[in-house]
């Protein structure tokens, strides 16, 4: 079971909430202070992407964020309900949303070493984890 589970309606303002919660729980779980900024950014990117996909597909289901404290790692999974949402390259498409989506994944890949992006007919899933020393 996830330690903390957050669901929010696909609206940009809640991405801030997700960043806030992820950083607070990660700190408590012993994730290094120096990594928290990047973690906050990565979670925000994953949630922003999920919100965008839900809006694109007109989905009214919530975006899901699971925060799990492991023995030595802290994991975050962001799940959406958009079918086949693994990013496709489009040629020369000047669609801002699409471009931002690619930028978002570029930021996540640049920041997170332990990353897993998956998608199927049910939806997409971005899983990220960071080392965490057990809190004193």
């Amino acid at each position, binding site marked *: 079971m996830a330690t903390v589970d957050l669901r929010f309606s696909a609206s940009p303002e809640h991405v801030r909430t997700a960043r806030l919660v992820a950083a607070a729980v990660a700190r408590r779980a012993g994730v290094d202070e120096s990594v928290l900024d990047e973690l906050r950014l990565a979670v925000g990117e994953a949630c922003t992407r999920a919100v965008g996909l839900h809006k694109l597909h007109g989905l009214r289901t919530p975006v899901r964020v699971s925060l799990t404290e492991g023995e030595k790692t802290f994991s975050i999974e962001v799940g959406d309900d958009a079918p086949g949402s693994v990013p496709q390259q489009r040629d020369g498409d000047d669609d801002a949303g699409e471009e931002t989506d690619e*930028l978002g994944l570029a930021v996540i890949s640049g920041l997170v070493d332990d990353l897993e992006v998956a998608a199927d007919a049910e939806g997409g899933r971005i899983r990220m984890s960071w080392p965490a020393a057990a809190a004193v």
Partner: protein
Amino acid sequence: MDLSLSTRTVGDRTVVEVGGEIDVYTAPKLREQLVELVNEGNHHLVVDMERVDFLDSTGLGVLVGGLKRVRAQEGSLRLVCNQERILKIFRITGLTKVFPIHDSVDEAVAASD
């Protein structure tokens, strides 16, 4: 912190000072501001990001959009940023090659296109 925006003119440059968080929630305000400036004929923009606390890919997208817009008018868009954690986001997305990034507003204003 929410987004703050203020604009001033220095010679033929328009300096947009941005503060706070540029994210999916606030980026639309920045986009509006840039679009408005360009529509009003300000084609040489300097975006001062020294007071930006947070920047995500939505913010990057808006800046890229701004750049395309001024270039269509043979204009320019220069960034001012000294903060390592913000610069890192430009680096990992390869956008340091796309934007001229300066250490100070003075330097950005003095740069010739």
